[in-house]
C-alpha cells in the first residue's frame, strides 16, 4: 500500500507563507485577547490536550487498581473519586468541546467562505469559560475530589456525601455555558454567513454535523444547568426537591440530568461523524454516497436524540410504561446512525482508497463505532438492559463509541487538518504506527470489558470476584498500549511544528473551500470572498482547478 494521494510542493523551494494567522500579530496578549476563530481553536487545542492527559492519567489509575481483585492500590473512597473525576474531565472538558471547539472553530468559517464566526467575542468568552470550569475542576481534585460518579446521582450526591459536589457542579455549569456559546455561534454563522452560492446542500457534511450538534448544545445544556442549580440548593438549603423525606423525588434530578446527558453523547459524536465524512471522501477520492441522507441523518440524530433520555433510567424506578416508550424510541434513534455507517461504506465501494493516517483512524472509527453502536441497541432493549446496566458492559459500550469512535475521529481530524492549521505535514510512518498501536491497545482494553459485563462484573467497584481478574489484567495491559498510542501524536505533532514537511495549500488534493487557501490561512481567511459554484466533494471540479496556478498572498 505505497499509494498515496499526498501532493506536497517542492520542499527545496517551498516556504510557509510569511503572512498568516500565526505570524500576523505577536505576543501573548494577541493570543489571549484574540477574536480570530483560528487562534481560539489553537487555544482550545492546547488546553483540551492538557485536560485529556489529566483524564487519561486518572484512567491509568483506575486500570492499575483493577489489576487485582482487592482494593490494594487505593482506598475505595479514593477509587470513587478517581473514576468520578475521570468521567467529569473526559466528558465535560474533553469530549464535548473536542471537535467543535478545535476543528469546528477553525474550519467552519473557512468551509462556508466567511471571514470569521458571527460572534468572535462570544467565541473567546467561550474559551475563558471553558478554562474557568476546567481550573475549578482541577481545584476540586486537589481539595479532596468528588466521589458520586460523573452522573451525580441523587440522593447520594445531595444527602450522603461530604465531598466537593458543589464545586464540581459549578465547574460543569460553567463549562456548559462554554458549550452553549459555541453552539449558538455555529448556528448563527451557518445560517447567516455562507458565501454566495454556498447553498445548504453544497455545504461539507462536516458543517451539517456541527449544525446538528449545535442545536443540541443550545437546547439541551440549559436543562443540566438547572439540575445542577437544584442540587446546589438541595445540598445547601435543603429545599427538598430531591429529598424523599420532604416529598421530593430523586428521579426528578435524573430526568433533568439525562435530558441533557443523552443529547450530550450526540453532541460528542456528531462532530466526529462530520470529520469521518470528510476523510472518507478524500481518501476514497469519491463523493460521499447519499449526501442528502447523511446530511438529514445528522439532523435526525439530533432531533430523535431528545426523546430517548430515560433509557439511562430503566432500573431506577420510572414507570413500566415509560420504560416501554423510551425503549421503542431508542430503537428509532439508532437508524440515522446506521444510515451514516452504510453511506460511508458505500462511499468506499469503487473508490480509490489509500491508507494515510487519517484514513487509518477512519477505518478504526467505522469498525469500533459500529460495535459500540450495536451494543447500544442491546442496552436500549429494556429486557437485556436490566441485566447489563451498571455492569462493565455499559462501560465497554460507551468507551467503544466515545473512544473507539469519537476519539479516533478527533485524531483523524487533527491529522487531516494539521497541514492546514500549521502549514506542516506530520511524519506519516510514525503516525500510522501510532494509529495501529491505538487500535490494538483499544481493543485489548475494552473488548474484555464486554465479557466482564455479561459475566456480571459491576461498574464503579474497586474490588471484584477473583474469577474476573484475568480479563481485567488484559484490559489494563491494553490500556498501557493505548497510552503509548496517545502519547506518540503529542510528540511527533510537536516535532512537526519545526521539522515537518511544508504542506502547501492542498496536500490531500481535497475539495472544500478550506483547501483552496494557503496553509496556514490568513487571519481574514480569504482575500476576496469566494463564490461557490460547484457541489460538495466535486473531484472533477478539483481536476479542472489544477490547471489554474494557485498563488498565495505574502
Amino acid at each position, binding site marked *: 500500500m505505497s499509494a498515496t494521494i499526498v501532493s506536497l510542493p517542492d520542499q527545496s523551494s517551498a516556504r510557509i507563507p510569511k503572512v498568516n494567522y500565526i505570524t500576523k500579530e505577536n505576543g501573548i496578549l494577541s493570543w489571549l485577547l484574540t477574536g480570530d476563530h483560528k487562534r481560539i481553536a489553537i487555544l482550545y487545542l492546547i488546553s483540551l490536550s492538557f485536560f485529556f492527559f489529566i483524564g487519561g492519567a486518572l484512567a491509568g489509575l483506575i486500570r492499575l487498581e483493577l489489576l487485582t481483585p482487592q482494593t490494594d492500590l487505593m482506598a475505595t473512597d479514593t477509587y470513587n473519586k478517581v473514576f468520578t473525576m475521570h468521567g467529569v474531565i473526559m466528558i465535560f472538558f474533553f469530549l464535548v468541546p473536542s471537535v467543535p471547539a478545535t476543528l469546528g472553530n477553525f474550519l467552519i468559517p473557512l468551509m462556508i467562505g466567511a471571514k470569521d464566526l458571527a460572534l468572535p467575542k462570544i467565541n473567546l468568552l467561550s474559551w475563558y469559560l471553558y478554562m474557568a470550569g476546567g481550573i475549578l475542576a482541577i481545584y476540586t481534585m486537589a481539595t479532596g475530589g468528588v466521589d458520586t460518579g460523573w452522573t451525580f446521582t441523587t440522593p447520594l450526591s445531595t444527602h450522603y456525601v461530604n465531598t466537593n459536589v458543589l464545586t464540581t457542579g459549578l465547574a460543569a455549569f460553567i463549562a456548559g455555558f462554554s458549550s452553549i456559546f459555541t453552539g449558538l455561534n455555529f448556528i448563527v454563522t451557518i*445560517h447567516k454567513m455562507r458565501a454566495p452560492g454556498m447553498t445548504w446542500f453544497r455545504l461539507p457534511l462536516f458543517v451539517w454535523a456541527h449544525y446538528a450538534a449545535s442545536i443540541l448544545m443550545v437546547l439541551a445544556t440549559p436543562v443540566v444547568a438547572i439540575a445542577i442549580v437544584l442540587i446546589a440548593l438541595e445540598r445547601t438549603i435543603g429545599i427538598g426537591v430531591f429529598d424523599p423525606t420532604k416529598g421530593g423525588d430523586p428521579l426528578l434530578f435524573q*430526568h433533568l440530568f439525562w435530558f441533557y446527558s443523552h443529547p450530550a453523547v450526540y453532541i460528542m459524536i456528531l462532530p466526529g461523524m462530520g470529520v469521518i465524512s470528510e476523510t472518507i471522501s478524500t481518501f476514497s477520492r469519491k463523493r460521499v454516497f447519499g449526501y442528502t441522507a447523511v446530511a438529514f441523518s445528522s439532523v435526525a440524530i439530533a432531533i430523535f436524540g431528545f*426523546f430517548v433520555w*430515560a433509557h439511562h433510567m430503566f432500573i431506577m424506578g*420510572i414507570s413500566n*410504561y*415509560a420504560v416501554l416508550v423510551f425503549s421503542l424510541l431508542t430503537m428509532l434513534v439508532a437508524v440515522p446512525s446506521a444510515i451514516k455507517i452504510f453511506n460511508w461504506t458505500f462511499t468506499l465501494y469503487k473508490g480509490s482508497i489509500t491508507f494515510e493516517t487519517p484514513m487509518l483512524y477512519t477505518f478504526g472509527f467505522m469498525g469500533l463505532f459500529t460495535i459500540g453502536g450495536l451494543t447500544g441497541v442491546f442496552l436500549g432493549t429494556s429486557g437485556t438492559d436490566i441485566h447489563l446496566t451498571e455492569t462493565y458492559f455499559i462501560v465497554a459500550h460507551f468507551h467503544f463509541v466515545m473512544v473507539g469512535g469519537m476519539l479516533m475521529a478527533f485524531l483523524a481530524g487533527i491529522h487531516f487538518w494539521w497541514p492546514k492549521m500549521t502549514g506542516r505535514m506530520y511524519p506519516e510512518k510514525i503516525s500510522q504506527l501510532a494509529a495501529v498501536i491505538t487500535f490494538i491497545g483499544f481493543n485489548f482494553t475494552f473488548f474484555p470489558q464486554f465479557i466482564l459485563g455479561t459475566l456480571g462484573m459491576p461498574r464503579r467497584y474497586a474490588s471484584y470476584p477473583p474469577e474476573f481478574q484475568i480479563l481485567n489484567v488484559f484490559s489494563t495491559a491494553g490500556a498501557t498500549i493505548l497510552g503509548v498510542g496517545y502519547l506518540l501524536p503529542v510528540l511527533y505533532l510537536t516535532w512537526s511544528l519545526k521539522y515537518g514537511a511544508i504542506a502547501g495549500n492542498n496536500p490531500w488534493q481535497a475539495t472544500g473551500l478550506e483547501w483552496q487557501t494557503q496553509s496556514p490561512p490568513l487571519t481574514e481567511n480569504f482575500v476576496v470572498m469566494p463564490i461557490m459554484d460547484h457541489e460538495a466533494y466535486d473531484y472533477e471540479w478539483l481536476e479542472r482547478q489544477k490547471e489554474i496556478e494557485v498563488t498565495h498572498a505574502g
Partner: protein
Amino acid sequence: MSEQVQHGEHEHHIVSPKVYVIVFFALLVGTAATVWASYVDLGLWNPIIALAIACTKATLVVLFFMHVKYSTKLTKLTVAAGIFMFLTLVSMTLADYISRAWGNW
C-alpha cells in the same frame, strides 16, 4: 404610521405604536379576565382557562412586542423549536410520573 422597507430577506418593518397600544390593552384585558376567572369556582376548568389566557397573552407578546409576526421564517421556526423542546421536556417527564400510578401493567 408603519414604514415598510423590504430589503431582500431582512425585515425592516417598523411596528407602529398603534399596534403596541392595542396589544397592551389586550394584555390588560387578559389579565383582568384571568384574575376574574380565578375567583369563580369552575372546578377542572380553572387551570385550563388560566393557562389558555396565559398562552394567549404570551402569544401576543411574542408576535407583536417581539416582532415575530413581522420576522423571517427562520425566526418563527426558532421560536417554534423552543416551544416544542419545552413541551417535550415537560410532557415526557410528566408522562413518567403520571404513569407510575398505573401500576405494573
